[in-house]
Structure formats: structure tokens, C-alpha cells
């Protein structure tokens, strides 16, 4: 009997490696990925290499414009705020809070949501239906409102804001992962696995998890985007990070009264939020396409 191996010139690539090789071909997405890595590392490391501390006041140079504008100073590339603090350092500190918060939320919510969603999808009966109705009810509450409710109960602070946003986004994520897993469960190969007598965990690990990569990326991306926007929004409304913590949204709120005097102070944090979301979205979109192409 002949064996096929002799003719298999290429090795069969592992799916992840295969997806990676497709992803590498998407130049914009790769650029976005590098930008994302740079953004995260710089905002974490910024206290060590920034020339100015984000809290140092300088009465001599208040409200400096960015250095390219008239009256700008090369010491403060993006200018200073009304207390003479360096805008760039403050932006990075803000990024630390916003981006870090969003990543934390994404991580925890994704984990919890996946577990609960999978639990709901894999179990039947009273437990699932109770969860279902509870989700229906919770999903009807706009996330901003539920975040406000939770913050009113906990009191405004950065950590509470993160908890509130996480909790308010959790139902959405549970529902999303539930739907995805449910869809996957109805597919033939899962039935085959079930007939093989696979346990729930095995079914989840080997049957479902590898096949829901693409929708998971979409959900995660959405979760991340929403949490950034919500952190910034709550910060802007004064329910999030409390001063002197500078979160990008509260940075905008604090400079709002200065908008005519120094519009840069409002422009830069907004642009930062915008760029972070765009970069992450492009990266996620690229990844998603790679996964889709890899699966096809």
C-alpha cells in the first residue's frame, strides 16, 4: 500500500501559524499591530523616559502651545496646560489609565463572559433560562446608565469606574459569547463529538474554542472599543478617575474651559482616544480577515 507522505512536500501548517502568515501579508494591520505594541509599552514605560513628570507644575511656562505653533517650546513638544504641566507626559499618563483600564476590563470581562456564556450554552433547563431572563433584563439597561447606577452606589473613583464599566459590559459579552457558542453547538461536528461521549469541558476546549476565533475577535474588539469610550465618557462626566489621576476623558473635561485659550489641550486627548480606537480596530479587523481567510 502506498503512503501519501512522500508526496506531501509542504508540512501542514498549524492553523494559528497559517493565520499569522496571512496576517503578515496585510501591511496596514501589521503597522497597526506595531503601533499598538509601541503605544502600550510607551505608556507603561513613560514615567521612566519622559523628560517631565505629569504632575510638575511650572508657573513660568503656562499654557504653552505645541512647539510647532507660534510661541511653542521644544521642551514641551505638545505644550503645557494651565498649570504649566507637560501635555505629552499627561497624555501618556492618561493613556496609561484609559488604555490600561480598557485592557483590564477586556481581559476580565472576556474571561468571565466566556465562562458564564459557555456555561449557559452548555447547560439546559432552569439555570439557563433564569440566566436568559436576567440577561434580557440587564441588556435592556444602557451600559452608561448601569455604569452610572453602579458608580452612584460605589462612589466615584477610577477603580469603581472600571468595575462599573466591566459589570455593565458583562451582560453584553455574555450574550454575545452565548450566541456564538450556541451557534457552534448546533453544528454537525459538535454533534459528532457529543456522540463520541466527549465531556462538556472537552467539547468546549476542542470542539468549540478553536472554531469561534473569528466571532471572538469581533466581540473582543467591540468590548475593548466600548470600554475605552465608556472609561473616557465617565471620566469626562466626572464619575471616573478623580484628580490628580489624569484619564483622557477627564483631561478633556478639565481643559474644557480653556478651549478658546488653548484648544490643543482639548484636541490632543480626544485625538489620542480616537487614534487608540482606530489602531485597535484596524488591527482587529486585519486579524479577523486573516482568520476568515485561514478558515476558508
Amino acid at each position, binding site marked *: *500500500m*502506498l503512503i*501519501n507522505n*512522500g*508526496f*506531501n*512536500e*509542504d508540512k501542514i501548517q498549524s492553523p494559528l501559524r*497559517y493565520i499569522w*502568515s*496571512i496576517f503578515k*501579508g496585510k501591511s496596514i494591520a501589521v503597522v497597526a499591530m506595531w503601533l499598538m505594541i509601541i503605544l502600550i509599552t510607551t505608556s507603561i514605560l513613560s514615567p521612566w523616559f519622559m523628560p517631565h513628570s505629569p504632575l510638575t507644575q511650572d508657573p513660568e511656562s503656562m499654557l504653552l502651545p505645541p512647539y510647532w505653533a507660534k510661541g511653542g517650546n521644544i521642551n514641551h513638544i505638545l505644550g503645557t496646560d494651565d498649570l504649566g504641566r507637560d501635555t505629552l507626559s499627561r497624555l501618556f499618563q492618561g493613556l496609561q489609565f484609559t488604555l490600561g483600564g480598557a485592557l483590564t476590563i477586556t481581559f476580565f470581562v472576556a474571561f468571565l463572559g466566556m465562562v458564564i456564556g459557555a456555561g449557559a450554552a452548555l447547560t439546559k433547563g432552569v439555570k439557563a433560562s433564569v440566566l436568559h431572563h436576567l440577561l434580557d433584563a440587564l441588556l435592556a439597561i444602557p451600559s452608561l446608565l448601569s455604569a452610572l447606577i453602579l458608580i452612584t452606589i460605589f462612589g466615584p473613583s477610577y477603580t469603581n469606574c472600571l468595575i462599573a464599566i466591566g459589570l455593565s459590559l458583562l451582560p453584553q459579552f455574555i450574550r454575545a459569547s452565548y450566541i456564538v457558542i450556541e451557534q457552534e453547538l448546533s453544528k454537525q461536528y459538535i454533534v459528532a463529538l457529543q456522540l463520541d461521549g466527549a465531556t462538556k469541558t472537552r467539547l468546549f476546549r476542542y470542539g468549540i474554542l478553536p472554531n469561534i476565533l473569528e466571532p471572538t475577535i469581533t466581540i473582543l474588539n467591540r468590548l475593548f472599543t466600548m470600554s475605552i469610550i465608556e472609561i473616557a465618557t465617565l471620566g469626562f462626566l466626572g464619575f471616573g478617575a478623580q484628580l490628580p489621576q489624569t484619564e483622557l476623558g477627564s483631561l478633556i473635561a478639565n481643559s474644557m474651559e480653556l478651549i478658546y485659550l488653548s484648544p490643543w489641550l482639548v484636541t490632543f486627548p480626544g485625538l489620542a482616544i480616537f487614534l487608540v480606537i482606530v489602531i485597535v480596530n484596524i488591527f482587529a479587523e486585519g486579524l479577523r480577515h486573516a482568520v476568515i*481567510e*485561514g478558515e476558508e
Partner: protein
Amino acid sequence: MALLDIRNLSIDIETAQGKIRVIDKASLNIVDGSIHGLIGESGSGKTLIAKAILGLHNSNWTVTADRMFLGKTDLSKLSQKERRQILGTEISMIFQEPSSYLDPSQKIHTQIESVLPKKTMQQRFRRILSKIKRAHISSRRLQIKELLHKVGIQNDVAVLNCYPHQLSEGVCQKVMIAMAIANNPRLIIADEPTTSMEAVTQSQIFRLLYKLNQLNNTTLLILSNNFANTSGISDYMTLVYCGQTVESGSYKQIMGSAMHPYTQAMLKTMINNEEIYEHKAQLYTLPGNIPSSNQLPIGCRLGPRCPRAQRICVKNPTLTIKKGHSFRCHYPIKLS
């Protein structure tokens, strides 16, 4: 006389790992008025060939052919518009799983009506006139009714007012056939028309197709993975393996004197009720699996599985034609 004459049709598909030649120099010659079976395992490229004939290919396909003629029209040189004119009137297609090939949001009536020849100005005018005369002639309704009766649907009114999801697969397939024959095309391509159907429905559909061929003299190209099923009604057969046409010939030639090892293997797989199998005897299969599309062997693609393969099989065999019986093999089975 050949209605459809395809020689050395190749299809390359662009993928992330480069171009893959999925159809490799396939040749097909369909005699006018015959039933031609295109037989191959699933994934062997039958549907691709059919789509290439219809021109329904995506932008990342490259289709090349030495000859691709439908009657006297060169299919490979048609513009989009010209091709559209041919589709439906000259060639039509019947798909597998018909219910998914019918628009779920339109009633059957609308869908059938849309394939009927467009009303000319004259007809419209006549219709208005007839309305004035209060002589109610709904020619279209009649036409549709006739079509449905032709394909064996009796309760036409009920069916016409249904959405596809309310009908069974068999009825849907009949509707598809009705739509396909609406314009009396010269060639009907039936792509596995009976998969996922009950046996009774299957034979109904086959009988219907056979009748069409006999009554209207419509040429039929039946794509199938079921050698046994299709061979029954086919006048001619072509076998495809991994995008290569291995053997082609009339029913008698194939059944009686298969030249290619693959054909022979297929013949052997047919369960023959006259033979008595021993208890626990193994049924015959070719060893190995069909290679996946990105790891196709070079030369004769059956090579690794072929019981008669030798070193020279890594080169592509040339087409041998004997009395309309063609095959591609370096070591054909000798006529016994």
C-alpha cells in the same frame, strides 16, 4: 454532433498559498440530445467545471481552455452581456439542495415569472387591448401552470403562492427544473440534483429529467458523485478525479470496457447483487484518500493511489481517443 465541446479546460484559483490548479486540462464533449453524466467524488471539481461553463466564476479564478464551444458560440470569448443572454435561454442549471437556491423572500410565482421571456412592447400592447375587450387572457399564468404540470406539480396554485421554505426539497427541485426548462434551453446542467433527497423523490426527479430529454430533446449534463445512480440514465459518461477528466465514453464503453484504473475501481465499488459476498468480506475501495487541494500530486493525480502506477505517472498522461472513447492513462487496462 457535439453540443458542448470543451478541450483542455484549466482553472486556477488564487489562494493565500499561491495559485492552485484545481481543474487540470479537463475535456468534455457532449453529444446533442444525449444525457451526459459527469461523475466524480465530491470535491473533484465537477461543480467548478459547470460554473466555468456558465461563466459564474469569481474574480480570483483564471479559466483557460483550448476550446469551449456551445454549438457555434465560443463561450470563452463572450462578454458579460452576451453571456447573460445565453444563460437561461441556451443553458440553464439545476442545483443541489434546491431550497437554498430559491430566493426565500419571494413567492414561487414571482420567481418563475421572472425567468419567463420578457414581455415585448407588442405583447404589452396586446394585453392592454385585451383588457379593453374584456377578454381575459392571462397567458403568463397559463404558461406557468403548464410549466408546473410539465414537471409534475399538480396543485400549482398552492405551490405558486408559497415561499420556498414552505415546500419540500423535492417540490423545490421540481420548481427549479420548471424554471430551467422555461425557455427551452439546449443544455441543462444538473448539479447533483438528487442529493439529500429521499429515494422516491430521487427516482422521480431522475424520471423527470429522463422524460425531458426524451420529449424535448434537451441535452442534459448530470453532475453526480453516485456512479451507480447516474449510470442508469446516462448515454455518455465522463469521470473526473481531482480536477482531471480520467475517462469519457458512452455508457457501453465505460461499463463494458473501462480503460482507466479509476473507472475500474468505481465499477468495482458498485455493489452487485448477483455476486455473493462472503461473510465479513471487505468491499472494494481504492487505498488512500483524496489529496487536499493544496497538496495535489504532480502528473497523474491518481498516481499515489493507483494500483498500476509506475514511475512515469509523475508526468501528465496524454489524452487517448478511440472511437469516441477517451482516457488519460499511461498504463490503461488492456481490453480483455
